[in-house]
């Protein structure tokens, strides 16, 4: 997008993708903030990148792979230790199927 202006619809869409519920008042606060971030980054659009290969990383490493071997995992207690809620060895989250 050449202009940094984003609409309220864009903002709501982004919030939806991030699964964040925003109050109307928050949307009004966030919209100009997001816009200013995009404006700041707009400077990148001024660079001429025609015929320039994208840079994915700054070193030229490649083929960093591992062999198919098993190393011990966390035990169940450790795996669940930072979860706010657990049950029978599972992580518990709010229901994800909408009826």
């Amino acid at each position, binding site marked *: 997008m050449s202009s940094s202006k984003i609409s309220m619809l864009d903002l709501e869409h982004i919030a939806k*993708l991030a699964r964040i519920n925003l109050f109307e008042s928050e949307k009004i606060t966030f919209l100009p903030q997001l816009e200013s971030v995009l404006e700041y980054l707009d400077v990148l659009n001024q660079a001429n990148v025609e015929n320039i290969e994208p840079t*994915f990383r700054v070193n030229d490493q490649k*083929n960093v*792979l591992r062999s198919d071997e098993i*190393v011990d995992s966390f035990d*169940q207690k450790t795996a669940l230790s930072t979860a706010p809620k657990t049950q029978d060895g599972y992580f518990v*989250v*709010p*229901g*994800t199927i909408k009826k």
Partner: protein
Amino acid sequence: MKITPIIGLEVHVELKTKSKMFCSCSAEHFHVDPNTHTCPTCLGLPGALPVPNKTACEWCIKLGLALGCTPNESSFFERKNYFYPDLAKGYQLTQYEKPFVINGKIKIGDQEVRINRAHMEEDTGKSVHIKDNGQELTLIDYNRCGVPLVEIVSEPDITSAQMAKDYLLKMQQIIRYLGISDADIEKGSMRCEPTVNLKIEDNDQVFYTPLVEIKNVASLTGVQTAIDFEIHRQTEAFKQTGEVKSKTNKNTFGWDADKNQTFLQREKEGSSDYRYFPEPDIPHIEFTKEEIEEIRKTIPELPDGKITRYKKDFSLNDYDANLLTSDIDFSKAYELALGQNPDSTFAKFTANLFIGAIKTHLNESQENLNIDKINSIFFKNLFDAVSKSEISSTVAKQVTIESYQTGKDPVEIAKSKGLIQVSDSAEIEKLAIGVISQNSKAVEDYKKNPASIGFLIGKLMQASKGSANPQLAKEILEKLLK
């Protein structure tokens, strides 16, 4: 109005590597206590670094090569961003712009389905939905999260539900030949998402109905029924609304296997909503031409090649060749039984025993084939005995099964059970004389009506306890009664 279904299939296959795709946790997740195969990487903890499993990458390329695909010179992983609790990181590592392999094809009968790509990605965790004091909760097990998954995307070249089923069976067969996955649809190690729409030709006008992607199809019959349902639904919807495909009206439908119908599941996130971007923590992957050729060498002879060879070298018919090659272990066992340079009579004989005896036995007993129980010499002995009419073809099937179960020579089994056909003329003649003297009434009947000889043959067979060669018995009786 002419209606042509346009069907593309996305197939996901879970690879049976020992460890996960980007970490060294065990990839086993069936009948394992929940959350016992996890680590900082597959739990998406901050700072964890993913390192791709080399075997999984090679197997993805191996599958691609088997499907006639071309490997990309350079591939890389990308983050597909979406928030769902079964994916701890908030993104799935997958390949978007540069998959490992592209542009293949698969033969279905005399038709061809083009393969767009096969790429490497990771599986998600498993969710269990429960109700607790009226509250909907979801339990998550991350043992499956990060298990290597290959996605194979077809071009929309499939034109019927039957053809979709045939495509899946062929894909499953090839994957099992390669030994890279169990490809079990019921167990979820092979999953399929059909995308369906219709081309409708009506008085020189052509319409395309909106695309529908069908999720949650968990069986082969499910795939067929779901596609047929969707073809019917879209035909009716078009007649009523006339709505045609646009850039924005692709929908995701779920498949309800109990009600046998599809239902609108959610509006699909467009690919731009996934905000794909290259995974900064995994350098590009480049396999050299030599390495690709090494991978190609590990591909066994595939079903199509085997079928052609069986038909050409062993003069087998299409049906038999297909049955023998349906499963790689079964065809290996068959080839083992044949030994070196079999002639086509022996090959056909052995094919009949494999299909008529061994396969039937395995189906009935639900056992898996044990190739160690196949002994080429036994088949050769049996073939010789049948050629010399010492053993009937019915007895041959019976003793083949017993030989498979006990490891004994089938001809010896036939001998010990008195199932060897007597082809000794002198002995049969002795029995025939006895039968003639004891059945004077039947002899009279025969003289009036030669067709009634069956009765006397029956008596002779009885006297021999079924061991006489019936053809020889007939000839000797006829000679004596002349």
